[in-house]
């Protein structure tokens, strides 16, 4: 009997267990999945929780429900990966040997990377919304907040779901309008990049959203520290931005087990082949989702497309065939723009988000890079798709793992 071990039962790990249980012969392969936490969170829902659009119940379920019955599910902390010995050490020194390892340990926020961020004002007037705890604490704060300077801030790239901070700013505009207090709130979006939008087509077609919603932009801001006593963030060029409420996306890092095991880069992400998803150092270790260092977005849709390709590559690896470098960086994301509307974007390593229709060329019904109510309904419906199809490894009709170029208006690639 051979062992395939998956580390992490988040979006990517759970999907891989569901794909592989159907593909690997039961009498030859034992599939084990390890995750210390009991709860599976619907992470896209963390964007909606602060605004009372989703309830806490809508964003979490018991993880066990989504793990196939024939897989072994171990709920223990992962202490160390020992690639040379082909084994994983769990808490209480329990050892788990593998023939193939899939690392899906994700990324986490690391607010302690910035001086003053997770100090005494953390969850008082400084919040994240990338964790369940942060999103819930922020919801409670927003319910009673009387207004002032709201600063939505990105610490450094890469981050999970790179558009979420911008969506947060858009939804905040709607939220305060509905509460009849928009005039009491000043919204500023602060980014280390050159703009809230960074690609030419998106900047051209979407910059109006910031103007329309009266959201100020502070760009090229590389934060050095949070002065929590005086409610200011300060960057390396000594630029200061004052806040009354700071909603920040802290540094995102891979799991500390990757660092302990000496397998990661500066941010604990695992160097991985961007087409095949095999790790660069070890041929029997594969990485998927947010845990990798590949230049794709860290997002559930990316993990979903990767899972289909990685499943094929695991089967090729077992047969001794050459792996295919098929993953093209495909991502497909709904972007909330507030007031019941959303955008849809579809892009990959080489093609920028463009205008067009999705998923049917020329027909839609969803329109790319254009605000619409249908796109918003799509985003809301996606929660059902996530729990019932996506993480169970059910193929989503008409949406392929690699990007289709039909029905889209391509301009030059940069």
């Amino acid at each position, binding site marked *: 009997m051979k062992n395939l071990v998956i580390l992490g039962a988040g979006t990517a790990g759970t999907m891989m267990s569901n794909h592989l249980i159907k593909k690997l012969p039961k009498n030859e392969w034992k599939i084990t999945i390890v995750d210390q936490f009991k709860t599976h969170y619907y992470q896209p829902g963390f964007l909606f929780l602060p605004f009372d659009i989703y309830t806490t119940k809508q964003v979490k379920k018991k993880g066990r429900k989504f793990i196939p019955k024939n897989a072994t599910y171990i709920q223990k902390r992962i202490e160390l990966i020992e690639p040379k010995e082909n084994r994983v050490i769990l808490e209480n020194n329990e050892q788990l040997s593998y023939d193939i390892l899939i690392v899906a340990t994700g990324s986490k926020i690391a607010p302690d990377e910035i001086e003053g961020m997770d100090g005494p004002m953390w969850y008082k007037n400084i919040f994240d919304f990338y964790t369940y705890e942060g999103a819930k604490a922020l919801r409670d704060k927003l319910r009673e907040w009387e207004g002032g300077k709201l600063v939505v801030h990105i610490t*450094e*790239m*890469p981050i999970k779901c*790179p*558009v979420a901070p911008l969506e947060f700013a858009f939804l905040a505009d709607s939220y305060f309008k509905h509460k009849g207090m928009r005039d009491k709130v000043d919204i500023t979006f602060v980014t*280390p*990049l*050159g703009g809230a*939008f*960074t*690609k*030419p087509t*998106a900047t051209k077609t*979407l910059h109006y959203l910031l103007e329309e919603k009266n959201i100020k932009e502070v*760009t*090229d801001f*590389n934060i*050095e520290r949070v002065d929590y006593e005086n409610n200011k963030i300060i960057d*390396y*060029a000594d630029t200061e931005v004052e806040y009354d409420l700071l909603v920040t996306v802290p*540094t995102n890092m891979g799991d500390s087990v990757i660092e302990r095991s000496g397998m990661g*880069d*500066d*941010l604990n992400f695992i160097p991985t082949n*961007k087409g095949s998803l095999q790790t660069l150092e070890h041929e029997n270790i594969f990485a998927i989702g947010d845990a990798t*260092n590949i*230049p794709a*977005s860290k997002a559930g849709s990316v993990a979903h497309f990767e899972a289909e390709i990685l499943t094929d590559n695991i089967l090729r690896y077992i047969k001794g065939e050459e792996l295919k470098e098929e993953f093209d960086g495909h*991502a497909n*994301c709904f*972007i909330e723009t507030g007031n019941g509307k959303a955008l849809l*974007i579809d*892009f990959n390593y080489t093609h920028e*988000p463009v205008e067009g229709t999705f998923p049917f060329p020329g027909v839609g019904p969803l329109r790319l890079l254009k605000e619409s109510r249908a796109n918003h309904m799509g985003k809301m419906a996606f929660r059902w798709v996530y729990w019932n199809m996506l993480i169970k490894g059910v193929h989503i009709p008409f949406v392929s793992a690699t990007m289709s170029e039909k029905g889209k208006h391509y301009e*030059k690639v*940069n």
Partner: protein
Amino acid sequence: MKKMIEQREIEVNEEGYLLDFSQWDKEIGEKLAEEQNIILTDKHWEVIEYLQDKHRKEEALSIRGIKKSGVINIKEFYSLFPGGPLKKSTLIAGIPKPKSCI
């Protein structure tokens, strides 16, 4: 769009970033720097080489990376490329500026 530098035609985007890194050489780098009112010193070149190396390896550029590079500290980086150091240094180095997904 096309741009003439030193009697040579190079492809750039609307913001002036080179579209094809193979068209870059030191002379082009110097001219691009001049347009940003920067005179390149040895330290500038060290940073540019570091950035180009990261670009070839397809590794993301960040202020954290600069901090850990051992080439330069962040205050120096700001003083060499004032007002948006990553934006300006990547333009001069002939590589794309750091981007998000939209």
